[in-house]
């Protein structure tokens, strides 16, 4: 019977049947991955919202309605305020450094006839692929308190030693420096790729008109790069706000909480102080702030691409 039916391919009913079976198979492909994502990834994210309005003081407390008291606590908490201040400084300075050095390097290196370009690309890729945990372990020694190769160099030059990781006024900037180093390969590669799509004819015309390199950059290159910059900043903001191992390994948030970032504050509140609901409220506040920044950048992106 089935074989006979299979020959009546042209009937509309048969075609409809085939179409719906086809659609069903496609959704079937999605079923297991989607279930796994919803159960083990989406549900935990939603659960954070429920925890934040409960009063859970350990990892196994049952949730119970407690209102917005945790949010009040978070917003008044001086450690969270300190972590917010530190994270804003960390993210803003890291992104400015990565973007500025990234674009500058891409502009300098964007010429086809440089020898050793492939080696350079390999080096960038290698530094980019190394896990944050390994990078943090290495830089713990480079800027360390006992053994510090940077201080050794400073002494060779006849300069003073610097408390890279144990001076509360400096430690955060040391972490920013390491984070700029860590994000630089990605930024250089992105801007080098973007610059390859730039039409050089305009520059020849601009040079003939007597425009300086500085004027050419702001009139031609910068507007051309703006969509790439905004996209990279969206990714960079989230990545930088998620940086965990640099303070966790290199400073432990110290000295005097000067390198306490949101990531470490949330981790400690939940897993060391076991204040699950308060940590959940922190997470919610942090992700609302990041979402607002993300939407603002996204609007800027739409504006820059429609203007261009």
């Amino acid at each position, binding site marked *: 019977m089935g074989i006979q039916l299979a020959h009546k391919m042209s009937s509309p009913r048969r075609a409809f049947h085939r179409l719906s079976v*086809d659609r069903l*198979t*496609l959704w079937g*492909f*999605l079923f*297991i*991955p989607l279930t*796994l*994502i919803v159960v*083990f*990834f989406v*549900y*935990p*994210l939603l*659960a*954070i919202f429920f*925890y934040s309005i409960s009063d859970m003081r350990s990892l*196994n407390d049952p949730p119970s309605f407690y209102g917005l008291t945790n949010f009040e606590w978070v917003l008044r908490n001086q450690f969270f305020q300190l972590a917010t201040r530190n994270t804003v400084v960390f993210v803003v300075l890291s992104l400015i450094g990565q973007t500025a050095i990234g674009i500058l390097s891409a502009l*300098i*290196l964007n*010429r*086809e*006839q440089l*020898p050793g370009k492939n080696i*350079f*690309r*390999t*080096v960038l*890729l*290698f*530094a980019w*692929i*190394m*896990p944050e*945990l*390994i*990078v943090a*372990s*290495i*830089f*713990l*020694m*480079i800027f*360390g308190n*006992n053994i510090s*190769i940077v201080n*050794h160099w400073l002494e060779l030059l006849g300069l003073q030693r610097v408390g890279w990781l144990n001076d509360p006024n400096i430690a955060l900037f040391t972490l920013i420096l390491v984070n700029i*180093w860590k994000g*630089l*390969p990605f930024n250089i590669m992105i801007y080098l*790729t973007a610059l390859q799509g730039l039409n050089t004819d305009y520059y*020849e015309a601009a040079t003939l008109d007597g425009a300086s390199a500085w004027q050419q950059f702001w009139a031609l290159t910068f507007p051309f790069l703006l969509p790439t910059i905004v996209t990279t900043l969206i990714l960079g903001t989230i990545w930088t706000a*998620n940086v*965990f191992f640099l303070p966790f390994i290199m400073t432990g948030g110290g000295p005097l909480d000067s390198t306490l970032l949101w*990531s470490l504050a949330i981790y400690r509140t*939940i*897993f060391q102080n076991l204040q*699950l609901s308060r*940590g959940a409220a922190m*997470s919610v506040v942090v992700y609302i702030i990041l979402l607002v920044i993300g939407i603002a950048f996204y609007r800027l992106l739409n504006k820059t691409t429609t203007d261009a």
Partner: protein
Amino acid sequence: MSASAHNSTFRPTRANIVALIYMVILSVIMIFPFVWMLATSFKGSQLLVDPYSLIPRNPTLYTYQALLGDPLFQFGEAFRNSALSVLVTILFGIPLGTMGGYALARIKGRWVDVGLIALFFLRMMPSFVTAAPQFRLLLAMGLVGHPAGLYIMYIAMSLPLTMLTVRNYLLNMPAEIEEAAMVDGCSRRQLFLKIAAPLARPAILTSTIFIFVNFWLEYILAAQLMRGQYLTLSILLVGVADPTTGRFELIFALAVLIALPIVILFPLIARYLTSGAFSGAVKG
């Protein structure tokens, strides 16, 4: 493109020389920490006498022998556990993610777009946020401290990136081959297995690399969901990387051993990350 673009020989103009010097300096800054790590790992007990040289005066394999030979460090166990979690994640995450990515490339509709945006944000979610509810989930399933619980989490957390990478790659592939095969009576399952999956090979390999790099040193879930029942390399490194112990040569030797698989696979990694499939993964 200007005429100079076609000229592949290096002309020593001032701008070119500045660019070359800049490139060399930047390369040194990017590679120096790893070179110093390698050098220090061979210094053994000489470290305190000779901490800053790039070439150890008396290179010794002592630290490596201690790490690999002394059962106290449990390096073998940590290595086996980390390797096993990555392998299991690839074994299940890649086929499931490829199927899901293929479906996302072929189903059209507003819900798919919403789902894609959700996947994009999910893959950005750090595990210090999700780890607590994930811990409670495993607790309810009786899987806290059981490796299977960790594997399930890794597989689920690897899926968004794999699905997006495969989907973006297949979207740029011409659909004509599949349409022609469909007219010939190929079922969706055959289309996927015979045409789409082989076509998506670069995207699949890129995703495999990402799983390896992302989960090889995963720390927060391994530490919090396994509660000391499952020693991984990341837990071992975090335990050793304590500046108060002063055993820097140990930290570096351990970091070298942990980085070794990444270094060995690096030529393959470099090939696939510079291919087109990578841009799909970044754009998300």
